[in-house]
Every structure is written in C-alpha cells, then in structure tokens.
C-alpha cells in the first residue's frame, strides 16, 4: 500500500486526456513543420526553407485578412461573452417565468440553422441597410459574428451558473453589499471559469466562420477563412502554414507571458 489513495483519480482518465492533447497538437505540429517546407505543395517535403515566411510577409492580402480575422474575433468574442453572461444571469436560478423558454430558444436560435441560411438572410437584410445608410464598414461582420457567438458563450456560462451556490451571494446581500458589489466581488469570481470558457469558445468560433462572413463581407473585407476558401480550388501554398505558424507562436508567447505575470502577482 505504497501509493496514497487519491479521491480525484479516475482510472484511464489521465491517459485519455494525454491522448487528447497529443491528438490536438499533432496536426498543429504537422502544420508548423510544413511552414518550413521548400516545396511549393503542402503535400511533399522539399527541404528546410524560410521562403514561405518571407512570401507571406510580402503578401499584404493574407496579412490583412489574418489581422482582420483576429480583430473581428476579439471584438465579437468580448461583446458576445458580455451579452451572454448577462443573459445567463437572467435565465438561471429562477423559478420559471413567462418568456423564459422563449429567451432560451431565442438565444440558441443562431445554432439551429445551417450557416448558409443565416448567410443568405443577412445578405438580403444587410444589403438594404448598406444601400440605405451608405455605411459598409466592419460593423456588419462584427454584428453577425457577435450574434452567432452568443449561444456558444451562453451555454458554458449557463452551465456554470446553473447550480452555483446561492449562499455566498445571500450572505453578501445580508452584509448590505449593493447588488453590483455582490456581483463584482462574489458572483463574478465564482463565474469566472465559465466566462473564460465562453470567451475562448466564442473567439474560436468567430475565427472559424467562413460561410456567413462570405455573404456579409463588403469590398476589402476578406478574413483568413474566406481568403482560404477562394484558394482551395487553386491549390493552397505553404504561405498559409507560415502565417498560421507565426500567429500561433505569437499567441503562445502572449499566453505564456500572461501566465507568468499572473503567477508572479499571485
């Protein structure tokens, strides 16, 4: 009886999790390796080269598209997570009231229809507004992305909230904390992992969207996915790998920095 009994242990779970992480990173690893490929195709290895980084750097279209993707993704993720958090607070921990089911269905509606349909509907609707107002900026894409990201942010936050303990909040209220103080000091910290998960999901979903963006975008508003969609027919060059690798490294760097700063502060 050498090992101590850990209540958190479940047989096989760590192995599955490890497999999961390996499987998640394996394609990413391949993608990064092929960014350094000298050959023109993404399917054969032609020796080590940095030329795709150089050519991606010089391709303003792909750089612009990538930056635009991140910009839209960040704004849409923050907006949708904020709105989803508010909506989740409004639809959980309450006895059923009139309109609750309606809200639930409405918030999840963007999930229900294939993207192409939302795309066509938005095309028709937004075109009218574009012609009427003359404004054809990024606002439409941000609005569309925010809308379809809301259910993705909403569900994890709601799941977190659903059986969250009310006692701490009640205690805070009993100590004459204002509702805002209670929220800020008690609810929000408890809810934080849900919010973070929702934010991550919303960001990822926005980055991945092709179809809706394709229909909503105006002149000069390609995102990385719509740019790539146009390329599939004509063969994709490792330029895409290079730019993805660069942004991957950048995000890993930021996350690492963030983590260490956090660590220190704690």
């Amino acid at each position, binding site marked *: 009886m050498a090992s101590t009994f850990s*209540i958190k242990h479940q047989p096989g779970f760590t192995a599955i999790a490890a497999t999961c992480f390996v499987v998640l990173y394996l394609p990413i690893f391949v993608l990064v390796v092929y960014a350094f490929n000298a050959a023109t195709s993404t399917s054969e290895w032609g020796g080590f080269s940095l030329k795709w980084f150089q050519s991606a750097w010089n391709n303003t279209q792909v750089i612009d598209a990538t930056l635009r993707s991140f910009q839209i993704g960040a704004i849409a993720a923050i907006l949708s997570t904020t709105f989803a958090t508010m909506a989740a607070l409004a639809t959980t921990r309450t006895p059923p009231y009139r309109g609750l089911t309606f809200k639930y269905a409405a918030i999840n509606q963007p999930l229900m229809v294939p993207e192409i349909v939302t795309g066509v509907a938005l095309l028709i609707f937004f075109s009218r507004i574009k012609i009427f107002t003359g404004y054809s900026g990024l606002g439409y894409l941000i609005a569309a992305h925010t809308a379809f990201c809301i259910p993705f942010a909403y569900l994890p936050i709601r799941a977190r909230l*659903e*059986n969250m303990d009310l006692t701490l909040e009640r205690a805070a209220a009993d100590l004459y904390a204002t509702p805002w103080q209670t929220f800020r000091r008690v609810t929000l910290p408890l809810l934080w992992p849900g919010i973070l998960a929702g934010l991550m999901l919303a960001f990822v979903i926005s980055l991945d969207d092709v179809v809706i963006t394709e229909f909503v975008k105006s002149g000069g508003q390609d995102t990385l996915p719509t740019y790539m969609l146009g390329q599939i027919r004509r063969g994709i060059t490792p330029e895409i790998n290079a730019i993805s690798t660069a942004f991957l490294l950048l995000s890993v760097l930021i996350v690492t920095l963030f983590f260490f700063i956090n660590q220190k502060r704690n």
Partner: protein
Amino acid sequence: MASAEEVARQAQRKDIRDRWFLSAPALLVIFFAATGPLLIVLVYSFLTPGAYGDVKWQFSPEAWVSVFLERDIFDDTLSLAAAHVTIFWRSIKLAIVTTIATLALGFPTAYFMATRSEKTRDLWLFLITIPFWTNLLIRTFAVLQIIRNEGLINTVLIKLGIISSPIQILFTDTAILIGMAYVYLPLMVLPIYASMEKLDFRLVEAGYDLYASRFQVLRRIIFPLVRPGVIAGSILVFIPAIGAYVSPSLLGGGKNMMLSNLIELQFGQGRNWPLGSALSIAVMIIVMVALLAYVRNASRSEVRHG
C-alpha cells in the same frame, strides 16, 4: 396598505423586469443579426424561384411540397422525397456519432483539467484552445496530411511493419468522423470543464467513505453534478455537426451530400432559393423541437436526482 403577499409579488415582478433588461442586449443582437433576417427566409419559402436565383414575388407552396414529396422527373409520379430523407438521416447519424466520440474523449479531458492545481487550470484551458486559434480550414488540411495514404499514420505503421499497404482512411466516413471530432472537441470540453471546475470533492470523499467504487462515484456523484455542462457541450457539438460542411467536403470526398450541401445546392448551382429556404426552416423546426424536448427532459430528471 400593501399586504406581505403583494410586496412579494411586486418584488417578483421587479425581478422579472430586471431579468428582461439583462437579457435585452443578447436578444436584440440576435434579433438584428440572426433571427430577424430569418423571417425573410420564411417568406421566401412561400415564393416562386427566380429564373437565375433569388425569388419572384409570387406565392407558391411548391417549395414546401418538394421538401417532403418528390415528383419523378421522368414519369411524373409523386413519392416521398427519399433523397431528402436519406441526406437528412446521414447528417443526423454523423452528428450523433460525433457527439458520442467527443463526449468520450472530452469528459475525461475536462476532468483532468478541472483536477489540476488551481493555479495551472487557466493554463490548461489556454492549452486546449490554442490549436483552435488557427482556422478551421487549415486545421482540416493538417488532419488530411496525417490520414492520407502517404500521410503520417500510414507511413509510421508501414515503417513499423504493422501493415504492408496503406489503409484508405481519407475519403471515408471515418475520415469525416476524425475531422469532426477534432474540430468540435473544444465545444464539448469547455462547457464540461466550466461546470466541473467548481466540483466539490468533499462529496466525492463522502462517496468513498460510503465504500463506493470509483465507477460508482463517477456515475452517481460526479456525473449528475456536471450534467448541465454535459448537456451544454452535447448541444454545442450536436447541432453544428448536423450542418457540418468543411470536414465532409474536404475529408469525406464530397461524394455524398450532407444537409448543408443540399441546402447550399439550392442557393447556389440549383438556383431554387424557395426550396433552400423551406428546407432550412424545416431543419430549424425539427432541431428546435428536439432541443427543447431534450433540455426539458434533462432538467426534469435533474430535479428528480436533486
């Protein structure tokens, strides 16, 4: 002279009003940029197809008829729209299998993440999402690179002498499943993680004190507690998987249509927008009814457990 009951009712009314204010931004954005425009699609489903896409403003129930019935193009007989049923069933089947696969992989992973020390949990959260910061298309291409005949898996297996000729994975349903499970995994992991992270392990301890086995603890204590997360994850995987587009067409070879291809065909080369609209509304209604039934059922059984 307000009675206590009335005060309580007023408080309740105020609470409900506050809740409407809180949910207003989300509802407004969704109405403006998702649901509202869909009303156009609903209207379109009752119109006549335009000659080259779009619609003619002329009422016609034809689109709805052809969602369910098909007229044979050669002998003009009417029969049940077998093609639509086949395609619909294929998409549902794939979505179910994907949901099960992601749950089987995602639950243990979320558990693993949630049982790390509090300091490192956010790091694990980032670690699991980072692969998804590169976009869907390129991730799918990377998966393709691994499973193709000359790809990583086959090369390694041949080098190790386990197989002598490559296994054809690409262009099969297995390839679609691998691609979809890969793409949708975070949609399962994150909600489960979010509801598991707060898991009170004193309950688990109590379980062991009562001589429960590890499996019993998992099934009777942990699983019921994280049920909301599992429900959320399943919804987030299942519904988008029904409309999946990229994995079936890039990894599955695109020989057999999925629901999204069928609808896209109507808005694209088929130039039958009313039929495309009617098909989408039909899908939406079916999914919405199924979802509400599922959620209602799930929360009811939760109450029973609690």
